């Protein structure tokens, strides 16, 4: 595994990335998983400008135009990806769904990531009673079946985008807290933290200026992988009818509705299915790439 040739290449590329020159910059950009980044940039653009670029109103029902075929199955350019059982434009609904996936994904990762980071810093640095409480509560959330409890909560408080986001934050912060806490525990024992203490730094200064910057890498890796997981979970919940309520288009709900037409209008499950697959694959590849780049355990 550790052939000498590989080690020199690895150390060269890391050494090169430290100095900022135009050439090093280009090399780094070229090393990016281009395909992943391209998909994600497209997704963000579609999410941001959804209402502008969407050819039709995603919720406009036209029963007379129901089940139009997509353009490459003999349809017309008016509805490039066809229409669903209620005559709603599939392309516009996919765009509208992209917005929801993105919104829920980023809101949940941001919320759960912040809560998890703060609790991990507090628990790992101060230890004692805070650590005991945070660790015990984390164990509860990691032990329960995520989807089952999430749908039970959404069912109890009522399905809406806000409720969904808060439920998913409530359920997923523990994953961040557990991983980052062990990272803080390791860092706390290192020289630079002890020296900072000796130098008279306050706790808040050590936490914000010394510990936080050192857990940004694992946080970024976790957040990327969690973004993919959150999009899958949102789609799963909407598929079960306990995520984002109708008529709002989501990829999961489109799959759930299209499921009844497999064999007759298979394109109704093909497009939302492809959308989920491509986006989650792109995010996971980016997460794996980040892990190889940023996690020191993989650098050798």
């Amino acid at each position, binding site marked *: *595994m550790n052939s000498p040739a590989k080690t020199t290449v690895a150390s060269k590329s890391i050494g090169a990335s430290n100095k900022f020159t135009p050439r090093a910059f280009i090399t780094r950009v070229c090393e990016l998983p281009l395909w992943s980044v391209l998909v994600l940039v497209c997704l963000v653009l579609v999410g941001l400008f959804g209402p502008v670029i969407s050819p039709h109103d995603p919720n406009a029902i036209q029963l007379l135009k129901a089940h139009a075929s997509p353009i490459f199955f003999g349809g017309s350019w008016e509805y490039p990806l066809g229409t669903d059982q209620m005559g709603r434009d599939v392309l516009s609904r996919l765009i509208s769904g992209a917005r929801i996936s993105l919104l829920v994904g980023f809101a949940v990762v941001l919320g759960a990531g912040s809560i998890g980071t703060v609790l991990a810093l507090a628990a790992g640095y101060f230890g004692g009673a805070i650590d005991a409480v945070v660790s*015990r*509560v984390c*164990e*509860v959330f990691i*032990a*329960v*079946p*995520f*989807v*089952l*409890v999430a*749908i*039970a*909560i959404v*069912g*109890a*408080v*009522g399905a809406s985008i806000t409720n969904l986001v808060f439920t998913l934050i409530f359920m997923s912060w523990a994953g961040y807290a557990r991983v980052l806490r062990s990272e803080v525990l390791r860092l706390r024992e290192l020289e630079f933290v002890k020296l900072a203490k000796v130098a008279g730094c306050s706790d808040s200064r050590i936490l914000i200026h010394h510990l936080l910057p050192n857990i940004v890498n694992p946080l970024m890796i976790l957040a990327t992988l969690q973004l*993919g997981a959150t999009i*899958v979970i949102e*789609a*799963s919940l909407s*598929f*079960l*009818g*306990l995520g984002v309520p109708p008529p709002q288009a989501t990829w*999961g709900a489109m*799959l759930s509705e299209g*499921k009844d037409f*497999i*064999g007759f209008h*298979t394109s109704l*499950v093909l497009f939302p*299915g492809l959308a*989920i*697959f491509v986006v*989650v*694959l792109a995010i*996971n*590849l980016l997460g794996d790439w980040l892990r190889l780049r940023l996690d020191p355990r993989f650098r050798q």
Partner: protein
Amino acid sequence: MTRYLASRLLQAITTIVGISLIVFALAHMSGDATALLIPPEATDTDRLALRQQLGLDKTIADQYLLFLKGAFTLDFGNSFRFGKPALEVYTDRFGATLALGLVAAVLASVIGILIGVYGAVKAGKLFDQATKLIALMGQAIPSFLIGIVMIAVFAVMFRWLPTSGNRSWESFIMPSIALAWFSLASLARLSRSSMNDVLSTDYIKLARLKGLPENKVIWKHAFRNAALPIVTMFSLQIVYFVSGSVIVENVFSWPGIGQLSIQAIQARDYPLVQAIVFISSTGIVLLNLVVDILYGFIDPRISR
């Protein structure tokens, strides 16, 4: 060892108490339960009587203690919808879920480990690339999506397999693959990296130099040392099987706990919802506890 046992046991108990708090809160998040059970034209005395009967007139703390007492004797009250004890409704459906879960677990572990181990043995070759592809697909294709794809291909296009029900052995094929999917991929990925580490050690080189048959080197010498993280991961994945069964059972109309849970949630049948969430979550905690204790006996390094 005693210390390890005691700390693991204490940890399991606090986790179960935490679960009971979440489950108790579930019924209270949805507002007044009596509104679901009583017609709107009922008199106030009827309402009050019902509240007293359900124990809703007591303080929150008393209600929780009452719930906890019920939960530890597995008494969650009568299901609103089925009119019989929630536990009975649960056990009626449990067999179907257990059968599907066991088939999926065997599928995920046997195929996942085989793919991962041979991926590591054939590192860099075509088979290894295929292993990586399977691991990626497993993470990127959610279980309901692979379920729908399989229905479209094997049930609707070729008409080989039934789309729903659990009457014959053929009806197990698609649901068990969908349920095993995620776990299979992550086990393949972990087995591959775990085997990779072991295969590059000196004692494996020695075993090969001694001229042992390759199969013996792989399974007896390498795999036994790579197995610990794989078994750990598998025990942690039991929780995914429970979550996954909710989704997969709904895709394939499988008459188990997963399908029951959606019906119960949609009907706001809280005794039943509470029974399902509490029993499933506690079951996972207890199962993980047993696995950890077994480890302590098998591998003395852990309990130290």
